[in-house]
C-alpha cells in the first residue's frame, strides 16, 4: 500500500499502522502507542458527526483529546479522515511541524483542544457542553478522552462531581484504561462516575462492536462514561 499523498482517497482501519509508521518509522507499535487507537477509530468512523468540511460548524460533535501523550494514533486517525494531510505525518515533532508530541488546537486542523498537561480536557468539555446548551444547541455531543492514570488529577473529579448533578446529557467521557495508574482499585473508575450520577459502561477497548454499542447506548438526563479496557501499559 502506498501512502505518499492525500488525494482525497479513503483510508481504512488497516491503513492506521502505516500512517503511524510515517511518524515513528516503524509499522509495529506497542500497546502504549495504540491504547487509544480502536476507540479513536470507532468514534471518528462511526459515531462523531464531524468532518473536515464541518470542523467550524457550531452544530458539530466535539471530540476533545485530553490525554495528549502518545498522539500518533490520534494524528493517524485525523489523517485517515482527511483533517490532517498525510504528508504532515513524517515531520512529527519537528520544529516547523504542526504535529507535536502533544497536540495543539491552534496548529492541528480538527483538534478541538490543545493537551499535554493532564486533567484539563474534562473540565473544558464540561464548559463546552454548558456553552452549547446555553445557545440552544441541544443536539451536538461532546466527547472527551482521558487515561486511567490521568484520573489521578483532582481537576477531573471537580468535573465529574459537577456534571452528574448538572445533568449534562450531551457530555461523554471515555477512559482508556491500560492499568497505568499506580494506585487504583478494580472497578474503581466506573464506580467514581456512577457515584456522581453518570451512566457508565465498561467494555473491551479493542472490540469495535462493543465500543460502538457503548458509545451509542442511551443515557437520558445523565452524562455517560465508557471505560475502555486495553492491555496493561506494562504488559
Amino acid at each position, binding site marked *: 500500500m502506498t501512502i505518499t499523498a492525500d488525494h482525497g482517497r479513503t483510508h481504512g482501519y488497516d491503513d492506521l499502522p502505516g500512517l503511524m509508521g510515517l511518524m515513528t518509522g516503524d509499522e509495529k507499535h506497542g500497546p502504549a502507542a495504540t491504547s487509544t487507537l480502536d476507540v479513536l477509530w470507532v468514534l471518528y468512523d462511526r459515531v462523531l458527526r464531524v468532518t473536515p468540511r464541518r470542523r467550524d460548524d457550531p452544530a458539530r460533535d466535539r471530540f476533545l483529546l485530553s490525554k495528549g501523550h502518545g498522539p500518533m494514533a490520534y494524528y493517524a486517525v485525523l489523517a485517515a479522515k482527511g483533517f490532517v494531510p498525510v504528508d504532515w505525518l513524517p515531520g512529527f515533532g519537528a520544529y516547523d511541524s504542526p504535529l507535536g508530541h502533544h497536540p495543539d488546537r491552534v496548529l492541528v486542523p480538527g483538534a478541538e483542544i490543545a493537551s499535554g498537561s493532564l486533567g484539563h480536557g*474534562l*473540565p*473544558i*468539555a*464540561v*464548559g463546552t457542553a454548558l456553552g452549547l446548551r*446555553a*445557545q440552544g444547541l441541544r443536539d451536538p455531543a461532546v466527547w472527551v478522552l482521558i487515561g486511567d492514570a490521568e484520573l489521578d488529577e483532582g*481537576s477531573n473529579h471537580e*468535573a465529574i462531581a459537577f456534571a452528574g448533578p448538572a445533568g449534562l446529557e450531551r457530555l461523554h467521557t471515555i477512559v482508556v484504561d491500560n492499568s497505568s495508574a499506580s494506585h487504583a482499585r478494580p472497578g474503581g473508575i466506573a464506580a467514581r462516575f456512577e457515584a456522581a450520577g453518570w451512566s457508565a459502561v465498561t467494555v473491551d477497548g479493542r472490540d469495535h462492536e462493543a465500543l460502538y454499542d457503548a458509545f451509542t447506548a442511551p443515557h437520558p438526563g445523565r452524562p455517560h462514561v465508557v471505560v475502555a479496557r486495553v492491555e496493561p501499559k506494562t504488559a
Partner: protein
Amino acid sequence: MDTMRERFAPVVSRMLDEDPRVAVVLAEIGKDGFREAMARHPDRVINVGIREQLLVGAAAGLALTGLRPVVHTFASFLVERPFEQVKLDLGHQEAGAVLVSAAASFDWPAGGYTHMSPGDVALLDTLDGWTVHVPGHPDEAETLLHHAVAAGDDKVYVRLSVQSNRRGRVIDGRRLVTVREGRAGVVVAVGPMLDTVLAATEGLDVTVLYATTVRPLDTAGLRRATQAAGTDVVLVEPYLAGTSTAAVSEALSDVPHRVLGLGVGRRELRRYGTVEEHVAAHGLDARSLRGRIGAFVRAQGRVAAGV
C-alpha cells in the same frame, strides 16, 4: 456608597439581559448577587460549586463555543489556585474570558493570608496577552467591566477592591490620566491608591498620573509626562511592590531613568485587623508615602518647593 463588588453583580446581570454571548461562571462566592439573573438565564449563570479548576476550565469551554464568560471569585482562588488553568485553558487554548476578582491584596484582613492576593497581577505578568484593569472607584469598575466584556475574545482581568477613592474619574480603559502636573518627577497612582497619593504629594512638584488600566501600560502617556517632569518615576500600586517596575523600565529603556516601586510587601505579616492597619503596615498611608516619595525625588537633587 456601594462597593465595586456590590456594583459588579447588577452591572453584569444587565449585560446578561442585553447580550446573549455573556455567561457568568461562579464557584459559590458571589452567587447571591446573581440570584435573579440565574432565574432569568439559568443556562448562562453557572455556579460550579467550590471547584476553581473547573471554574476556569469550564469558562474556557464556554468560550470555545463562542460565549463570553465572566468568571468571578476571590483573587486567591481565581488567579493563584487555578493558575495553570489560566495559563493553559485560556492562554494556550486561545480562549478569551473576563476574570473579575474580589478581596484584592487585603480587603478582608481578619480573614488572614489565605484570602490575600497581592501577587495576582505579577502572576498574570508571566503570561502573554492579558489586559489588566484596576478600578479605583465603583463607577470606574462599572466602566471597566463594560470595556472588558466588549473586548472581543480578549483575556481581561478586572481587580475589584473595597479600597476606593472618594470619587470616580473619567477613564477610557486604556490611557493614563494626568491628575496633577509638576517638574520634579512622575508618580503613577494605580486604582484605589490615587487619593492617598494626592494627599502624600500635596505641595511636591511632581506629576501625578492615574492608572486604572495597567496592562498594557500606557507607555506613550508615561513618556509624554516625563518630557516635562523628568524620568524619575514612582509607582504606587495596591498589589505587590514593584509589579510594574519592569513595564516602566521598558517604556523608558532608551533614556536614563530611575524607578521606585511602592506597593504591598512580600513578607507575610501574620496580622489580622483592618484594611487601614494593613495599609500602614505596608507603608502605603499618606504620611509614609510622602516620606518615601519625597526622599526618592530629593535624592536626584531637585528639592521641590514646599517640602
